[in-house]
């Protein structure tokens, strides 16, 4: 997935939306490389189970590095249809390839209107630049 084609939360999750054969909107969710570079030294990730419901802006897991723990927030409302359990076993996948092998969950989106609240790549870039300045 190309970072330029994704939508972003202010908390550094990305989402890619596709339509499956049944017409349902499926969102693939991960964490941006900007956030992973800020975290460094990942030690642990906790992901939810398939079938769990998520809500936009609500916690769905946590990621921990030597320095700190961060919650993971869902960009959308929906139900989890897939979890990338390989990532939990090999956190390097996540750090090296956050937009392909490093995806975290797939969500069947129940409320598409939530997508309009997310940032496009350009807006997200501006937020990251601002955070760099404030740091």
């Amino acid at each position, binding site marked *: 997935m190309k970072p330029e084609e994704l939508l972003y939360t202010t908390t550094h999750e990305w989402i890619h939306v596709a339509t499956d054969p049944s017409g349902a909107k499926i969102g693939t969710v991960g964490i941006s490389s900007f956030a992973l570079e800020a975290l*460094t*030294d990942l*030690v*642990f990730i906790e992901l939810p189970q398939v079938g769990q419901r998520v809500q936009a802006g609500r916690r769905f897991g946590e990621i*921990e590095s*030597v*320095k700190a*723990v961060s919650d993971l927030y869902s960009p959308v409302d929906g139900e989890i249809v897939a979890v990338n359990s390989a990532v939990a076993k090999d956190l390097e996948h996540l750090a090296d390839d956050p937009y392909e092998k490093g995806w975290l969950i797939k969500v069947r989106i129940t409320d598409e209107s939530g997508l309009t609240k997310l940032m496009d790549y350009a807006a997200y870039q501006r937020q990251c630049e601002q955070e760099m300045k404030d740091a």
Partner: protein
Amino acid sequence: MTPALLWTPLYEWHVAHGARMVDFAGWAMPLQYRSITEEHLATRRSCGIVDISHMGRLRFEGPGAEEFLAALLTRRIGEIKLGQIRYSLVTNEQGGILDDVLTGYYHNEMGQPFYLVVVNASNREKIVQWTHRHLPPERAGVRGKEVLWTDVTRLWAMFAIQGPNAVEVLQPLVDVDLDTMKYYNGALVRILHPAARRQGGIISRTGYTGEDGFELSVGAGIATGVWEAILEQGKPFGIVPTGLGARDTLRLEAGMPLYGHELGEDVDPFQAGLGYACYLTGVDFPGREALVRLQNEPVRWKRVGLELSGRRIARERSPVLAGDERVGWVTSGTFSPSLQRSIAMAYVRPDRAEPGTELSVDIRGRREPACVVKLPFYRRRSKGTTP
């Protein structure tokens, strides 16, 4: 508005080399250049260099210096021989720990003796105030017992060069034989590099990583040049500039306490396992009487190591439990790069402090199994032993 941070002489070098700078005890310090784990492992494998110019350094000289320090520190200062360094504490009247310090005894170029006391950055102002309180001008000026003391922190940079290759890296740059220098010894040295502009420094075989290594102090004006000369010298060994992030994980693996975490004014030396640094006879320092009393009382808490079975990190202040009962708290925790597991130091009730005791740590509401283990977590192979 936050007050301006202090800069070490290496500040610009750190920024130019991509360091992530953080506020540490009021100093702008590099947390890491790249990855904490990589920097940590470089020190274990070969050599790392850390800017520790934020460490407070107080120099005491004059005919009254020994007597004064003997009345302030928990160790018999008169027993420190030339070129030796000793670990001791500064305690308040209640026996609480104000700081843990290293005191070195040296002669300057003119053959005049002086003591160099290295204090924690976070405690420098407190110890300066404490010194003022115990050494008012009328006392410092008593004829024949004068004490002249200077806070040289801002005048001198200090680097820690640590790891199994530290001797090889540094030897070409100094005029003393490092191989025969004993642990916890130090000396004034000439620095054999044009960047030092014929200035000298103080080197000691000390450190905070559990590895062999040295700490080197040089004048602020030549600090960047000497730092770069060491990096150049260390290049064939894979020396890595290292931030305070790895310094913390290294000292934690080595089971070394850190002020503000394992140590504080509400902690006494016995619970911290630092009774060995307190001499209770033939000395008279603030807190001695309290320590004599505490020595004969059972300790309420004991500092222990914990190994967790999961990968989550037990952060400072996480509760330690035995069954449902709270029996202690975590003081520092990390994911050990050397052991590849989650480790922590904690204070626990003495009846739960035996190695092998099964406990748990409440990490953000979830209990993670933890086992009491002997400190240190990591011990280096001593030289001469084959792996």
